């Protein structure tokens, strides 16, 4: 399958990445090569095969709701690149 720079632009927007032109061109070629290899799966007839997301029959793991203390806010905010005493700081998004 042909991968174009327009497709890479589109998935870059979805991925929140903005590759410089040179990196984008290199990536386009590499992705095309890798995706062509992934097309080997097309040789396999999978009609009627259920997609398997989890190998063990573990689903809907539920527990009783319990009230427990959450993490200390100050300790969590310590890891943020920018924060004040009570919140993460980012550029203004709404006027």
């Amino acid at each position, binding site marked *: 399958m042909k991968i174009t720079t327009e*497709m*890479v632009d*589109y*998935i*870059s927007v*979805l*991925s*929140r*990445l*903005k*590759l410089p032109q040179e*990196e984008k061109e290199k*990536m386009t070629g*590499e*992705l095309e*090569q*890798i*995706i062509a*290899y*992934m*097309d*080997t*799966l*097309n040789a*396999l007839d*999978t009609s009627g*095969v*259920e*997609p*398997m*997301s*989890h*190998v*063990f029959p*573990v689903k809907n*793991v539920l*527990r009783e709701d319990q009230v427990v203390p959450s*993490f*200390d806010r100050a*300790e*969590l905010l*310590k*890891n*943020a*690149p*920018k924060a004040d005493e009570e919140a*993460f700081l*980012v*550029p203004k*998004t709404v006027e």
Partner: protein
Amino acid sequence: MNEILNLTALQLGEAIRKGEVSPVEAARAALERIEATKSDNAFVALTAQAALQRAEEVGKKIAAGELTGPLAGVPLGIKDNICTRGVSTTCASKILTGFEPPYDATLVEKLNALGAVSLGKLNMDEFAMGSTTETSFYGPTHNPWDAGRVPGGSSGGAAAAVAARSCWYAIGSDTGGSIRQPAAYCGVTGIKPTYGTVSRYGLIAYASSLDQMGPLARDAADCAAVLDAVMGKDPRDGTSLDVPAGNLLAGLTGDVRGMKIGIPADCFGDGLDPEVKKSVLAVADVLRARGAEIVEFTFPVMEYVVPTYYIIAAAEASSNLSRFDGVKYGWRAEGYEDLTDLYNRTRTEGFGSEVKRRILLGTFVLSSGYYDAYYKKALQVKGLIKNAFDDAFGKCDLMLTPVAPTTAPKMGESLSDPLQMYLSDIYTVSVNLAGLPGLSMPCGFDSKGMPIGAQLIGPALGEAKVLNAAHAFQLDTDYHKQSPVGKEAR
């Protein structure tokens, strides 16, 4: 080099309990060794002062009879994608620079409760994406057997540190072979246990349906002791299994009489280095001499395992890594104009190219119009791969395969061709897709003197069998006792 560095983790634990060696002496010896092998670049963060202080406390508790476990006081290293409270945890990525988790991974909590002494954090491929430890933001780790070669990856720092005798055991993670392949390249023993047996709480996710943590150590008995300590149901990991854990060490008898060892012919065909093939098949001879039976069969899914793995792993990675946005933790780019620009700049400059490649690939296979052709298709093939393993375990108790097609490649050879690097994961990725236990153990050396690894694969929850077969092999061979110490030109 201090003689105690040559002990296994269990031997050191015993010496500590008998009072022959103190945890402080052990930690000091390891720290000196780490300093002497600094050029390997196995550690990305060393917590020397904390380790000595911790060793002191643990020593007192052992003397007081409060800690009696087989690994109490034995120093270890922890891969840099496993959360350690207050200690830098970066996944060897620029984007997590400065991140100090506010909590310990469940596995770390469990080890600490039994008297573990951590020396620091180990180098890895960025976000565990890579097979050579060359994609680390902190520079590559070198193979202690030959500094011009890679240690494998992604747990390359862990394998190199254990091989170089810088720590007695290490905790790695394995999404597609990241414990087993570096263990093979560095001549140590490592096991990825059954998916769900070790809680993933606190393991920074790469591909959640495949990720699993496990030990790299000097031999199978040490691996069994570590798994005994860390396995078990954890309410904080919804995928963790509620099954009996422990007793792996106690079950190591070396008795493999009547055990059926399966040799899948498709794992020994084209593309496998003849020296690797010969050494791996020789494992069957050793086990046969101990009374195991060898059965051969076909395993007709091998050509599909790598594409299936990379589609699923990349898809999950693209979702998991969306949390790294320069807002909540780690590094933030400068010069942004608005919030979207902040995300774009931080992620573009903060992630290395292999990580970006997999995020883009994963976004592509999940995107509208391609989802059915790639992601859904891969989940269907995953079902077929699981069926192939079910068939195989109808014919045998364990499977014996190579870990990697060759021994450790030279530095710089793999990164230029990402697809070629992916293909080298052919023998390990299927084990993650099927959630099975897989162990890698040293089984020989090639003509260049580099270690060769053999893989034993068990059915789900078959850790006891896998470890016992490896233990049996190690009772009769001494490949696992070889070390690169003295071999390196330093």
